[in-house]
Structure formats: structure tokens, C-alpha cells
């Protein structure tokens, strides 16, 4: 298995390299750079002096040919230096490390709530297939999948303020220092994310459970006189969980995308907020650093899920 993990990690390198290169090309292919945005302001209200622009470009190293910029960035990354933001001048790596736990916490809390709510719903749906509890629960799942997560966030804020005189807490409190305030703040974006996760988990659990219930070993279990619930929970559930868990990497990816929007709705200083701000000002050093870490995280989650897969299903072995 160690060899398998090593091979997967080696294979990840070209993917990460490709992704960051793609972003570099996309950002630099069209005119307009961070220097003119710094001088002009994002809405273009400042005055642009050609001389200042040249000086600033030189200062930021934007006057160099594109390939020089690219390889200098790449060379630094290999040595672990992600550069400094073109917009704020802050160290990219430090900024990422500071905000990473916030985004990860939201994403994982969302997935956790999604599983806690989605699994029982999926199981009940499968057991009561094509009866009214199934219809209602499935209807719920399809409905929640259709609601934009940012709109749920918006409604929480608007209705909370209007009818409960409640405002979501602003500012950020680290989990280890003030756990209660931290959770009180991050639970809202996490719940908004979970509104999609639970629906996906429920749907996947249902269909996978129905498939498993047709298997011979389920019939055997029933034939030897086991109670329905024992058959469902001990024989069918564990096997039907495999495809559900596989989807976890998908939830993780959509969660990362979702937090970009939700962190803006709830003004949470996570990676998503930083990504959105950096992308708007074409701060490509920051954007590439962020993409590097987002993609790397995603690849690691994928690997973890694959290993989990092998643990859940002993027939699968990685060599």
C-alpha cells in the first residue's frame, strides 16, 4: 500500500503543475494587470499615470517577459517559497496557512452535518421504497439540491435580523481559543453547505442501498431468519456505504467552491474570501498560490477517500 500511495503522490505532481500553469496562462492571456488596478482602484476611479504604472510594474516584476515571470514563480515554489501578494504585499504561504483551517472547518462541518442527516434519510427512503415516506424524503432532497447555498445564507441573515433580531457574529475566533464563539459563527455557512451535502448523501444512500438489497447475501440473511433491521443495518448498510463514501471527494470539491460564496455572505476570513478578492484584482501570485493549495488539498482528499474505500471493501486492495 505504501507503494500505491507513493505512486499516487508522484502522479499528483503533474496535475498540480498543470493546474497552476493553466491558471497562469488564463490570467496573463488578456490585458489589464494588478499594477493598473492598484493605481486605478478596482472600480477605476483613480488616475492612471503611465510613468507610475511603469515604476510599479518594475517594482512588482511585471515588466519581465511572461515566461521569465512564470519560471521564476515555479522555481521559487519548488523551494517552498510562494512569493508575496502583489496586492497586499503579504506572504502568500503565511496567509494561506492562516486561513486554511477556517475553510477546512466549514467544509468538514458541512460534510459532517450532511452525513448525519443524509444517511438516516437515505436508509428510510430505501426501506420504504415507493411509499409515502420515500416520496416525501426524496422530494425534500431534490428540493434542497435546487436551493442555492448562498441564498440560504442570505435568508438566514435577512430573516434572522428581521424576525429574531439576530445578526450573525462578525470577526473570527480561533477554534482553540474560543470554541463556542467560533462554532457559533461557522455553523451557519456549514449548515448552508450541508443543505446540499445531505441531499446528495441521502440520494446516493438510497439508490446504493436498493442495489445492495437485491444481492444474494441479503436474501440469505433474511432466509436464516434475521430481523429486518438487522438485515438493513448490519448486512446492507455497510456495503451500500462504499459508493456514498466515494462521493465524499465530490462533496469536498463542491464545498470548497461553496465556501467562496458563503464566506463572502457571512464575512468569514477564509480561503474562499481571499480567493475571491485576489481573483478580482488579478493578483496572480496569490491566486496561483491558492490554486496550488486548493488543488493539493483536493488530491489528498481523493487519495484518502480511495484508501477508505479499500478499508470498507476488503475485496479491493491497492498494490
Amino acid at each position: 500500500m505504501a507503494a500505491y500511495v507513493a505512486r499516487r503522490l508522484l502522479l499528483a505532481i503533474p496535475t498540480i503543475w498543470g493546474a497552476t500553469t493553466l491558471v497562469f496562462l488564463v490570467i496573463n492571456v488578456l490585458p489589464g494587470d494588478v499594477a493598473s488596478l492598484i493605481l486605478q482602484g478596482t472600480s477605476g476611479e483613480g488616475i492612471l499615470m503611465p510613468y507610475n504604472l511603469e515604476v510599479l510594474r518594475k517594482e512588482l516584476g511585471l515588466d519581465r517577459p511572461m515566461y521569465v515571470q512564470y519560471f521564476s514563480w515555479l522555481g521559487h515554489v519548488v523551494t517552498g517559497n510562494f512569493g508575496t501578494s502583489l496586492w497586499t504585499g503579504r506572504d502568500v504561504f503565511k496567509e494561506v496557512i492562516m486561513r486554511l483551517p477556517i475553510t477546512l472547518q466549514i467544509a468538514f462541518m458541512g460534510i459532517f452535518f450532511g452525513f448525519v442527516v443524509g444517511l438516516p434519510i437515505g436508509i428510510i427512503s430505501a426501506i420504504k421504497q415507493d411509499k409515502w415516506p420515500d416520496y416525501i424524503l426524496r422530494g425534500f432532497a431534490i428540493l434542497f439540491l435546487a436551493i442555492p447555498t448562498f441564498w440560504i445564507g442570505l435568508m438566514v441573515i435577512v430573516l434572522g435580523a428581521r424576525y429574531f433580531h439576530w445578526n450573525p457574529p462578525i470577526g473570527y475566533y480561533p477554534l482553540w481559543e474560543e470554541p463556542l464563539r467560533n462554532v457559533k459563527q461557522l455553523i451557519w455557512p456549514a449548515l448552508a453547505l450541508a443543505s446540499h451535502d445531505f441531499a446528495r448523501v441521502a440520494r446516493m444512500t438510497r439508490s446504493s442501498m436498493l442495489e445492495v438489497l437485491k444481492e444474494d447475501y441479503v436474501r440469505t440473511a433474511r432466509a436464516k431468519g434475521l430481523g429486518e433491521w438487522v438485515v438493513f443495518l448490519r448486512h446492507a448498510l455497510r456495503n451500500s456505504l462504499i459508493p456514498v463514501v466515494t462521493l465524499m471527494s465530490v462533496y469536498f470539491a463542491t464545498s470548497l467552491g461553496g465556501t467562496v460564496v458563503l464566506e463572502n455572505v457571512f464575512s468569514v476570513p477564509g480561503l474562499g474570501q481571499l480567493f475571491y478578492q485576489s481573483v478580482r484584482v488579478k493578483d496572480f501570485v496569490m491566486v496561483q498560490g491558492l490554486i496550488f493549495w486548493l488543488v493539493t488539498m483536493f488530491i489528498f482528499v481523493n487519495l484518502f477517500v480511495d484508501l477508505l474505500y479499500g478499508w470498507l471493501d476488503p475485496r479491493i486492495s491497492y498494490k
Partner: protein
Amino acid sequence: MMGRSVQEVARPQAVARVGRVLGELLKQTLTFIRRKPLGGVGLIVVLLIVAMAVVPGVFATHDPLDADFDAVLKGPRSVHWLGTDNLGRDMYSRIVWGSRVAIIVSFGAIAVGTTIGLVAGVVSGYFGRWVDVAMQRLIEIMLAFPALILALALMAVFGAGLDKVVIALTVVYAPRTARVMRGATLQVKAMMYVDAARAIGASHARIMFRHLLPNVMASYLIVASTLLGAAILTEASLSFLGLGVPPPAPSWGQMLSGNAQEIALTAPWTAIFPGLAIVVLVFAFNAVGDALRDVWDPKLRGR
């Protein structure tokens, strides 16, 4: 008058054939609605919203851009069914016109994106070897980005605009389709009739278009119908972040963006109704997609 041309003689026959095809389509649609009531409702809602997008003037009661400063932030009433926004514009009419953006973006991006994905997937799956390896590597890189993050990066570069949203979503959804279509192609490729076609000397193009393509069509339509809803949600998120369709053109996501949050604190309807519009359309698309999957995916039949 001159003698009748060939086209004119042929026309009644062609009309009859089109009529037969349409009749068949109608019959199948009715069967679909009867067998899958939820999918049927979804289909009707989608058709209704498509109609709104095609002729918004018929459905709207006001000009969506017409600011009436005597009626700013009024709640729902008989003149303004869903109230007015902070510029006194009629919310109902703006939502009706906003359907145009939603429909253009979803159908446009999915039609182009999934077609590229379909071709790429079939070619990749059929040729295998280095073509497959090269294409799958590229797709892997594209799929390493979460959908919304890739779309955001692209929109930041392109700048806001309806056409640019379509391009960005095309780039996001093409590799996702290609992955599924490659899998479907590999399955079909293993069939005996593909070997038989090759044995009688059919060309690559013929095998791909006559044998593989028709047999992966069901999977393709299922993927495309599922992605329609996803495209709407992504467009709404982009517009919400101010990187989608620029104002004043009404788009549902954009009606919720900027200072919409503060406005909604005093006038909740300005945020509730555009959101509901998104929910209704995405729900309808998903319901149709689900029903299609049930009907077409033989593996899931009878569930």
C-alpha cells in the same frame, strides 16, 4: 404562374413526415408525463419558463428597467405583484426577464459544453492508447479545480458578460461530461457489434458515429439534463459575486448581489422572489433529469 418546382411537390410529403415525428414526440411526451408525474410537472415548468424567456414581453406587466421613484421598495400589491426594488422597478417583470439569462446560460453552456465533452469522451474512449492518456491527463487537470473556483477565475479574466458566462461554464462542464462519456464509450466499445462493424471494414468515423454515438446517447442526455440545473446554480453564484451578467440586465443571481442584503433587511421580498425563481427552475430541471434517468438508464429501471 410557372410550373411547380420539385421542392413544392416534395413539400406535402416532408410536412407529413415532420407531422408524424412531432406526433410521435408528443405521444412519447404524454406517456412520460403519465408515468413520471414529478418529471412531467418539471417538464411543464421548464417549458413555461422557456416560453417566458422567448417572449418575456407577453408575461411581464412592466418594463424591467423602468425606474419608478414614487414606488420604491413597495411590497407585493395589485400593481406590482411581487413588489418593487430599490429603484422602484417591478420585481415580477424583472424576474420574468431574468428567465432569459437563466435559459440562455443554462442551455447555451450545456449544449456547447456537453457536445464538446461528448466528442472528446467518445474519441478518447474509442482510440484509447496515447490519445486517451493525453486527453485524460488534460481532463484530470481541469477536474482538479472545484467547478465554481474555475468559473470564478475565468470570469475574473474575461470580465462580466452574458457570453463570457456561457464560455466559462462551457469550460467547466465539458471535461465533466467527457469523463462520463468516455466511460460509457468504453462499455459500448466492448460490445460484439462494434467488433463486427470493424470486421466488415467500417471506418473509425463510421464506427464512432453510427455505432458508438447512438448507444451512448442515453447517458449523454442524462448527464446534460443533470448539468442544466448545476449550470443555473453556478451562474447565480457568479452573478451574486458580481462576476456574472452585469447590471442593469436582470439576472436572478445578480438581483441578490451587491447591497441586496441590506435592502432585503427592510424589504425581504427583493431577496425572496429572485431566489425562489432559481429554486423553481433548478428543481424543474432536476425533476426532469431524474425522471429521464429512471426511464433511460436500464440499470436503474424498475426502481
